[in-house]
């Protein structure tokens, strides 16, 4: 009799200690968890959906001086293949003889198929005119690869050269603040204010970071493409702005994308 009472008390004590442990764990919910929770709440009703719908329309609509749609555009997996194209970009294209990311490739298609002026589009500020259309197209195309794993090709010599160039750019310190991409993004578990900084030199950081753009920014209500995101990184580093679709930004894309191999595509994401 006594023995069994003792046993029960032990059980209660064990249950109590478990309870205490779990409540300590709850109390220690970090700001990172809170931000993740906030993002999960916003994800259901991500306004990126609106841009996705716009992008899909733009892809199928006959436009430009030649009045044709983009449905014959080759994003690397053959003319008109959209699904899975984004997780293999940037890649080498033999018709333009250069490595291109999604946005620069779309500009090529808009020029070759629709007869729009590529130079004009490249010069247009983000969010205006054809640039706004380009972001919507990129949003839809990336969404078509949602949940797929990054697998950037590195078979062509130009693709490997771009990776090396991207790596050098990533670690190149310059500007008035003697800054490089690597200053913020080459170590684990770093943050700026409450934002986690992904380590873009390897997974999971590279896949998470690279795989989330285009993204909708709640704070300014804008849809941001990957090109605009990189442009803003350079602004924060006090570098001169890179040209739209420049080899430098594409090289950085190759570097991050190859490092993120196997990571999951989450774009279009929602950001603060």
């Amino acid at each position, binding site marked *: 009799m006594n023995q069994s009472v003792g046993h029960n008390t032990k059980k209660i004590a064990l249950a109590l200690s478990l309870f205490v442990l779990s409540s300590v764990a709850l109390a220690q919910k970090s700001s990172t968890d809170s931000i993740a929770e906030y993002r999960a709440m916003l994800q*259901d*009703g991500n*306004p990126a*959906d*609106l841009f996705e*719908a*716009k992008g899909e329309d733009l892809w199928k609509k006959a436009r430009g001086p030649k009045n044709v749609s983009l449905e014959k555009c080759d994003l690397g997996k053959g003319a008109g293949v959209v699904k899975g194209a984004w997780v293999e970009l940037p890649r080498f294209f033999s018709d333009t003889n250069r490595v291109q990311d999604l946005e620069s490739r779309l500009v090529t298609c808009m020029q070759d198929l629709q007869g729009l002026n590529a130079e004009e589009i490249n010069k247009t500020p983000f969010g205006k005119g054809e640039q706004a259309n380009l972001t919507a197209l990129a949003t839809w195309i990336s969404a078509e690869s949602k949940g797929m794993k990054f697998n950037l090709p590195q078979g062509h010599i130009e693709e490997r050269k771009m990776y090396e160039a991207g790596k050098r750019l990533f670690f190149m310190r310059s500007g008035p603040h003697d800054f490089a991409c690597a200053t913020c993004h080459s170590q684990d578990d770093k943050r700026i204010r409450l934002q986690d900084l992904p380590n873009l030199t390897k997974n999971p950081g590279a896949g998470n970071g690279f795989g989330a753009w285009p993204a909708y920014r*709640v704070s300014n*209500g804008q849809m941001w493409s990957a090109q605009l995101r990189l442009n803003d990184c350079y602004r924060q580093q006090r570098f001169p702005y890179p040209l739209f679709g420049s080899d430098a930004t594409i090289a950085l894309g190759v570097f991050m994308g190859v490092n993120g191999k196997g990571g999951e595509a989450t774009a279009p994401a929602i950001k603060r």
Partner: protein
Amino acid sequence: MADPMRIRAQASGDKATVRVLMSHEMESGQRKDAAGKLVPAWFIQEVSATLNGKPVMSAEWGPSVSKNPFLQFTVKGAKAGDKLAVTWKDTKGESRTDEATVS
């Protein structure tokens, strides 16, 4: 012409959850442009919803609602197959109606 809304309506039990994403600038009238001039107010003022043509919700909105607003509400008695329509009207008098089928 304003961009279309995204409406999802999902029935569970005797009610349906409706999620609406609207495409609108929602200018508050408080912001200034690059030249320092006030950007005129332009926002959605009236929102209403109907289920099979019968009004189920109406709301008056103001300038504090965000750009590209998201609205969620539940409708009692909505079943799969019902038609749910949402309409908004903004301060410029522009309006847009979109319809979805409850699933």
